[in-house]
């Protein structure tokens, strides 16, 4: 891998990647600054129920008169944080499993991979729902539920990368120099596997945000925290789908575009780092 | 577009020219600029002749082969030159004409071809696929031809229903050669055909190549970095350096009296099995970056005979002898030393 500047230059050449990054920055700003620029307190109910977008309420109001735009801005934080946190758990777990399975192979490796297979085979959504229900109605339980289910893809990828890095000559040289396993793993294998983990994790974040939206939509999670998924749930339960299109569109489009932005960035990163298209 | 080599003498009259490359220039578009991979290369292959295209990494020999087959990757463009085959310029041929030429007239064995056999198809299926892509023949003819091909390359015809993994490296290379001969081409281009093979197998393949030339009168362009391989089989060699041909002519003459400093240094850097052990010479430095400005003679920075003129005026290839041409300003002086 080159220096950061060269990597940046290469990334920028891909228009898809730039578009994704721009969108990403937009949503990051929304999450950071949302509460400061929101015109209203999102929990403030008013008498203007289910009003369409107007000058007063740019995105209209919901069934208890709350301003949808403000809810969207406040909700960005929670939605994104849940996505990031869950993805972090998946990334760490998946990488650890993949590294150990790939470096040590043998029975330990086989066992870990069979475990991964088990998790792969279990249907993700029902599993997440069950975990969420067991762990209780908080945002943390959603994070854990998603994290515990989403690590398998990373594990497989990291394992195969580890296997191929492991047999490169510089690892052998290291061993011949007397390096011990932990040194080789952290000093040689990890730096050469990280680009791939990075690209994969960005996609995992996209997935996690979506899963978080789904889970909050299904009713798990803390009802008093505003998230986009939850906004959608209220939209459905209050029957606004047929009458107040703005109520459904606002959070729905946001979810869609956030996921899209991560996917685009992840896709371009993957193109850059994928060992099949470039040398390690 | 003038042909810049004319090797006169009985050599030329004996062999009709099958393929002539004239002034070929192939450049690649890279993010650092235009890479002049092949810059004004000219040579010809006579009927029944084996021409060795020799050079080290990044000299452009594979690019020349790909240009002849019109198989250049995107980003590479032929900027100039002609490739004449049977009076026709391949570089200007239409798709239809190319289909008639490829495999039926000119075929190619790619570098590392042993690994390009499809593991889930039998060998027979793969050769048949190649034949059927260019000719319409029935199953019996195909089988007959495969039998004959196998016999030519020294394989047991009964093994044609085997899968690639059941063959050794040397056998796989023979299969590739059989595939290249499947439609009876006049010219075969072989890119590093023996590089991945063991010594004994290499000898067997080279022997096979010699036999094929005798039995079938096939012409061949043999691309390699290994001078001892061309010494074994080729009639003529063209030594390439940084996209240009620096010396060209009859194999025996070049080995006996190399005229270009690069050729001389190259020959001196090969350890010998016979004779006294003399210290090997080597060429320090590395090949110039072909995307940037290069000295007029590309070998200038590494040449022990370099003079001021060499950096400013490009040496054109000139006839030094019957059957030997060299691109160097001072080859006469060097020879006298």
């Amino acid at each position, binding site marked *: 891998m080159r220096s950061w500047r060269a990597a940046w230059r290469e990334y920028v050449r891909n228009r898809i990647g730039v578009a994704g990054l721009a969108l990403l920055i937009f949503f990051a700003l929304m999450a950071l600054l949302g509460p400061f620029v929101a015109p209203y307190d999102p929990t403030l109910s008013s008498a203007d129920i289910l009003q369409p977008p107007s000058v007063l309420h740019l995105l209209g109001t919901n069934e208890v008169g709350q301003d949808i735009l403000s809810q969207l801005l406040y909700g960005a934080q929670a939605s994104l944080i849940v996505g990031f946190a869950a993805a972090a758990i998946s990334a760490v777990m998946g990488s650890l499993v993949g590294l150990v399975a790939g470096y040590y192979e043998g029975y330990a490796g086989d066992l870990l991979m069979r475990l991964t297979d088990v998790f792969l085979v279990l249907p993700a959504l029902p599993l997440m729902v069950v975990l969420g229900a067991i762990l209780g109605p908080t945002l943390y339980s959603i994070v854990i539920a998603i994290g515990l289910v989403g690590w398998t893809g990373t594990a497989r990828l990291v394992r195969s990368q580890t296997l191929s890095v492991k047999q490169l000559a*510089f690892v052998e040289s290291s061993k011949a120099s007397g390096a011990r396993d932990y040194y080789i793993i952290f000093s040689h294998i990890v730096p050469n596997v990280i680009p791939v983990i990075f690209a994969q994790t960005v996609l995992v974040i996209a997935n996690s945000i979506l899963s978080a939206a789904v889970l909050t939509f299904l009713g798990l999670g803390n009802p008093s925290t505003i998230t986009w998924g939850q906004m959608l749930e209220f939209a459905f339960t209050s029957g606004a789908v047929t009458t107040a299109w703005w109520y459904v569109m606002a959070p729905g489009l946001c979810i869609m575009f956030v996921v899209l932005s991560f996917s685009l960035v992840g896709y371009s990163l993957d193109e850059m780092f994928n060992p099949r298209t470039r040398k390690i | 577009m003038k042909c810049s080599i004319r090797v006169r003498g009985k050599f030329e009259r004996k062999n009709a020219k099958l393929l002539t490359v004239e002034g070929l220039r192939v450049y690649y578009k890279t993010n650092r600029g235009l890479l002049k991979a092949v810059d004004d290369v000219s040579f010809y292959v006579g009927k029944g002749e084996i021409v060795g295209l020799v050079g080290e990494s990044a000299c452009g020999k594979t690019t020349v082969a790909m240009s002849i087959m019109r198989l250049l990757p995107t980003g590479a463009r032929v900027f100039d030159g002609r490739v004449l085959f049977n009076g026709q310029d391949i570089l200007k041929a239409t798709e239809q004409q190319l289909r008639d030429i490829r495999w039926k007239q000119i075929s190619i064995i790619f570098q590392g071809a042993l690994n390009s056999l499809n593991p889930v198809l039998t060998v027979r299926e793969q050769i048949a696929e190649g034949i059927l892509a260019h000719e319409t023949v029935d199953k019996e003819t195909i089988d007959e031809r495969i039998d004959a091909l196998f016999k030519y390359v020294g394989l047991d015809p009964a093994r044609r229903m085997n899968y690639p993994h059941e063959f050794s490296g040397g056998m796989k290379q023979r299969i590739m050669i059989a595939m290249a001969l499947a439609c009876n081409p006049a010219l075969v281009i072989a890119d590093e055909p023996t590089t991945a093979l063991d010594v004994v197998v290499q000898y067997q393949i080279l022997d096979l190549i010699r036999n094929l030339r005798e039995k079938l009168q096939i012409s061949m362009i043999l691309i390699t970095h290994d001078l001892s391989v061309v010494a074994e089989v080729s009639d003529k060699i063209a030594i390439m350096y940084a996209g240009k041909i620096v010396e060209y002519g009859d194999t025996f003459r070049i080995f006996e009296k190399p005229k270009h400093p690069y050729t001389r240094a190259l020959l001196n850097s090969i350890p010998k099995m016979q004779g006294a052990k003399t210290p090997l010479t080597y060429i320090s430095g590395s090949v110039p970056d072909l995307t940037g400005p290069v000295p007029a003679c590309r070998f200038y920075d590494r040449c022990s005979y370099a003079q001021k003129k060499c950096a400013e005026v490009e040496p054109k290839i000139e006839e030094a002898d019957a059957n030997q041409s060299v691109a160097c300003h001072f080859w006469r002086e060097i020879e006298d030393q």
Partner: protein
Amino acid sequence: MMTNATQDTLVEVKNIKKHFPVRRGLFSRSQNQFVHAVDGVSVSIRKGEVLSLVGESGCGKTTLARLILRLLNPTDGTILFERQDLFAASGSEMRKLRLQMQAVFQDPYASLDPKKTILRVVSEPLVVNRRKNGVNVQEKVRESLIAVGLSPPELYLSKFPYELSGGQRQRVAIARAIVINPRLIVADEPVSMLDVSIRAEILTLMLDLKQKFNLTYVFITHDLAVARYVSDRMAVMYLGKIVEIGPAEEICANPLHPYTKALLSALPSADPRTRHKDVQVKGEVPNAIEIPAGCRFRPRCPHAFERCTVEPELVKVGPDHYAACYLAEEVQ
């Protein structure tokens, strides 16, 4: 056996064997099928010599190299380094032994971690063996780089491998190997992937370093001409065993084992006048799973006779020259 260990011996290989089980299916690890990569090799490596291991692919030379470096554990036999058993050594003893032997591998593009600067690459043996001492490390790395001809070293310290040419990378690999002052260097095809015109440079460098630092080399190559150029002694391997061993010049001028003769005559010479040699050997190297009974070379040997049904041992056929062939024996 010809392991006559003397004062002169640095490494003694004693009847070492390495068999790899052939994996079949998901869980079954072996079904009594083994790849006999190294099948009983005994040799003494003398201090200060260059011993080359030559042979075709599958002959076991690479596996033997890894056994000497203790990157693999043997199925049988052992190796003594200065009379200390490599495979019986404890963790800390082994770490001390590792300091004495280093490796240079074939692929200059894969033998350096692409994510590390040259400084980190060359200093690794020091760091890993806790020989770091702040200033000393940089100093030693500089010395090493100068010794391999990468001068001034400051130019290279902060570069990454992708910024260097193949020849330069190989020099870095050599610098890494000598930075902890080893006694033995095992070089596995160190020049095969380099351009021909650069090979001589690296070979000359290795020989110079040998003089300067009192090194011993085990040099693995399939290129007999290169082996002849650098080595004092040559050992020819076939299907996991040494079939002929002796002074390099002697073996090239007077090969006595039929396989060595075949190898030498099959070598393309860089001289078009000596073409069309008559190589007397049939077929190709068989796989190392089913070793032929008796002499391993018997199925391909043009001179095989009745005695060859019993595997021959290495016997003396000349001054310091040994061959495992009954015919060679009878000549003497």
